[in-house]
C-alpha cells in the first residue's frame, strides 16, 4: 500500500516546548501550517461576526422607553440593536401571564417553594433528604396547587388556569412532568424487568408507544381525545390536558433511563440480598433501586433538560407558556419595531440557555463524582 513508507524519515528536531503563554500558543494554535491557517480563518470569521453581535446586544441597544417608537431607527437617530426596553415593559407579563397583579405574591411564593425543593434535591449532602423527597413529590405539589389555583377556605381567591401564563406556566408544566414522570418511570422500568409476561409486555408496549411518537401528536391527542375518553360530561381543564400528555410521554423516557441503571447493577447484589433473607420487594427497595438510581442521576438530569425544552411545545396547543406569551407580547402594535423579534428571541434564548446549561453542568458534576467514587472503590 502506498501509505507505508519505504525510507526512514530524517530524525525530527527536538520539540521546542517553551513553557508559558508563547509555548501554549505554539502548541495549540500554530503547531503547523494547516493549524496556523485554521487559526487565522477562525480569527477572521470571529472578527467579522462578533463586533456586530456586540453592537446589537449592547452598544446599539435601547435600554429605556415606554413604547416601540424609541426602538425605531428614525426616532432613535442611530441604527438600533436590541430593544431591551420592550423586555422591561413586558417583564411582568412574561413572568406571570395574565395572573392578577394583586395576587402576584402567590406565584412568587411558588417560585420560592420550587427553589427550596430544587436546592434540597440537588445538594447531595443536604440534611434530611428523605424528608426533602416527600416535600418535592407530595407536599410541594399539593401546596403549590392550593396556592396557585386558590383555596377559598384559606381566603385565597380561585384563579382560573386560563389566566396563568409565561415563565410560571413553563415552570408548572416542567415540574408536573418531573414529579409525575420519575415515580411512574421507576414503576414502568421495574415492570419491564418483571418475570410476569403480561405485566412485562404491557410495560414494553406502553414505553415503546410513547417513545415512538412525536410529543406534538401526544399533545394533540390529549387535547382532543382525553375529553372523549372520560365518562359523562366530565371536562378536563385546558391546562391539565397537555400535563397528562407530557407526564405519560416523559415517564416512558424516564423508564428507559432507570432501566439502564437497573441493568448496571450486578446480579449478585439481588442474590446476596435474597440470601440475607430479604423478600424480593425489600431487596429491590433497599438494595437494588438505591444503587441503580444513583448511577442514573446524570441520565435523569439529561432527560429533565429535554423535558424542560419540550415544554415549549405546549404553546402549539394553545397553552400560554413562556414562548406563547413572548409571541403575544411581540405582536403588540404599540411595540412594533424592526428589532423586536430578535430582541424577544435573544431574551428567550438567554432564559433557556441559563437553565439548561446549569442543569447540564450539574449532570456532568455528578458524573465526575460517581466516576471518582468508582475509582476509589476499585
Amino acid at each position, binding site marked *: 500500500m502506498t501509505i507505508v513508507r519505504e525510507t526512514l524519515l530524517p530524525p525530527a528536531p527536538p520539540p521546542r516546548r517553551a513553557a508559558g503563554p508563547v509555548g501554549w500558543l505554539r502548541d495549540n494554535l500554530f503547531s503547523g501550517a494547516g493549524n496556523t491557517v485554521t487559526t487565522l480563518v477562525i480569527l477572521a470569521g470571529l472578527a467579522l461576526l462578533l463586533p456586530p453581535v456586540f453592537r446589537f446586544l449592547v452598544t446599539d441597544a435601547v435600554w429605556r422607553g415606554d413604547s416601540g417608537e424609541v426602538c425605531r431607527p428614525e426616532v432613535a437617530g442611530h441604527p438600533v440593536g436590541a430593544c431591551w426596553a420592550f423586555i422591561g415593559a413586558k417583564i411582568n407579563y412574561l413572568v406571570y401571564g395574565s395572573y392578577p397583579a394583586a395576587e402576584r405574591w402567590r406565584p412568587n411564593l411558588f417560585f420560592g417553594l420550587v427553589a427550596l425543593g430544587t436546592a434540597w434535591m440537588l445538594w447531595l449532602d443536604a440534611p434530611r433528604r428523605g424528608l426533602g423527597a416527600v416535600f418535592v413529590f407530595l407536599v410541594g405539589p399539593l401546596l403549590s396547587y392550593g396556592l396557585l389555583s386558590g383555596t377559598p377556605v384559606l381566603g385565597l381567591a380561585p384563579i382560573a388556569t386560563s389566566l396563568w401564563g409565561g415563565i410560571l406556566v413553563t415552570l408548572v408544566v416542567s415540574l408536573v412532568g418531573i414529579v409525575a414522570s420519575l415515580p411512574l418511570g421507576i414503576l414502568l422500568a421495574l415492570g419491564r424487568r418483571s418475570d410476569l409476561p403480561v405485566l412485562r409486555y404491557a410495560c414494553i408496549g406502553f414505553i415503546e408507544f410513547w417513545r415512538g411518537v412525536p410529543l406534538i401528536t401526544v399533545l394533540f391527542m390529549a387535547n382532543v381525545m382525553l375529553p372523549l375518553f372520560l365518562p359523562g360530561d366530565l371536562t378536563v381543564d385546558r391546562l391539565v390536558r397537555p400535563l397528562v400528555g407530557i407526564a405519560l410521554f416523559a415517564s416512558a423516557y424516564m423508564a428507559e433511563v432507570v432501566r439502564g441503571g437497573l441493568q448496571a447493577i450486578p446480579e449478585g447484589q439481588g442474590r446476596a440480598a435474597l440470601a440475607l433473607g430479604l423478600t424480593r420487594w425489600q431487596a429491590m427497595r433497599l438494595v437494588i433501586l438505591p444503587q441503580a438510581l444513583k448511577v442514573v442521576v446524570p441520565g435523569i438530569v439529561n432527560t429533565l433538560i429535554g423535558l424542560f425544552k419540550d415544554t415549549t411545545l405546549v404553546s*402549539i396547543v394553545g397553552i400560554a407558556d413562556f414562548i406563547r406569551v413572548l409571541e403575544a407580547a411581540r405582536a403588540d402594535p404599540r411595540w412594533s419595531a424592526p428589532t423586536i423579534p430578535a430582541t424577544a428571541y435573544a431574551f428567550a434564548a438567554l432564559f433557556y440557555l441559563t437553565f439548561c446549561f446549569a442543569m447540564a453542568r450539574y449532570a456532568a458534576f455528578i458524573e465526575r463524582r460517581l466516576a471518582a467514587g468508582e475509582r476509589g472503590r476499585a
Partner: protein
Amino acid sequence: MRAAPPESGSGPGTRSTRALVLQALVALALAALAYAAFANASEKLARQGITAGFGFLARAAGFDISQRLIPYAAATSTYLDAFLVGLLNTLLVSGLAIGLATVIGFAVGIARLSPNWLARTLAATYVETLRNLPLLLQLLVWYVAVRVALPEAQHPAAWGGAYLSQRGLVLPRPDFQGAAWLVPVAFVAGLVGASIRARRAKRRIETGAEPGPVVGPALALVLGLPALAWIGLALAGHPVPVAWPSPGPFGPEGGLGVLPEFAALLLGLSTYTAAFIAEIVRAGLASVARGQGEAAAALGLSRAKTLRLVTIPQAMRVIVPPLTSQYLNITKNSSLAVLIGYPDLVHVFMGTVLNQTNQAVEVVAITMAVYLTLSLGLAALMNASNRRAAPMTR
C-alpha cells in the same frame, strides 16, 4: 448446603399461582380501562353525530397545500391524497435534514478533538449552545428573525439565476422530459458505478491488494456522468430545457420554489440535531484506543488519512446505534413544522383534516401509527444490522 428454593416456604406452586392471578388482574384492569374509554368515546361521538370509521378518507378535501410532491388539487383531491402529500413532505424534509445534520455533526464532532484550541472551543460552543436551546425557539429564530433580515420579495437578491427573498428561494428548474431523462439515468448509473468501485476496493483491501483511489473516482462518476449527459444532449441538439425564474413585480416568478417554511425547518432541524450528532461522534472517536491513532501517525499517515482510514471506521461501531436514534428524532421533530406552517403530516392531517372532519380518533390513530411504524421499523432494521456487525467486534 443448598438453600431451599424460596417458593417452597409457603407450599409448592403458591408463587406461580399468585403470579397468574396477578397477571390476570393486570390484564383485566387494562381491558376494563380500554373498554370504558371506548364506550365513553363512542357514546360521545354518537351524540355529536360523527360516524366512526375511515370512510372520510375518500371525501373531497377542499383545501390547498402549499408544497406537494404528488399531483394534488383542492377541488378534486381526497383526504387520503392530503394525507399522502403530508407524509411525503415529512419524509422529504426529514431525509434532507438527516443528510445535512450528519455532515455538520461529523464536522463539528471531529473539530471538537482538533489540535487547534480555537477550533475546539468554537465546536464546543456550538454544541453547548444549540443543544441547550429548545428546537421550537430555534425554528422561530430561523423563520422570523432570520427571514426579516432577508430582502423583500420585490427586490430579491440574485445569484446566477437563483433568487432569495423573504418569500423563499427560487431556483432554475431543469425539465427532465423527453430526451433529457438521460441525465437522471446517468446520475443513477454514476451512483451504481461508485458503489461497485467502493465494494471492489474493500474486497481488495481484505485480500491485501492495492485498493486504489475511491473517493475521487466516485465523485467523478456521480457528478461527471450527469454533466457529460447534459453537455452531450446540448451538443446533439436536444438541450435540457431549464425554467429560469424571473424577478416579477410582486416577487420572483417561475422556476423551482423553496418555501421559507421548508428552508427554516430544514436548517433548524439539521443544525439542532447536528449538535447531538457531534457529541455522538466525539464519544465514538474517543472510544478508539489512543494507540491506533499514534500507530497510524507512526506509519506516516496524515491526520486526515488517520481519521478517514483508521479512527472513524473503528469508531463507527460505537457511533451508528445512537446515530440512528438521532435520525428517528429528526423524523419525529419534523412535526414541529406545524408551528411555522410547513405542510407536514401533522400540520396537514392532524391539523387541517382533523379540524374539518372532527374524526379525532381515526386521525390521531393514523398519524401515530405512521410514526410508530417508522420508529419500530428503523429499530428492527438497526437490530438486524447490529446482529450482522456483532461477529466483527474483537
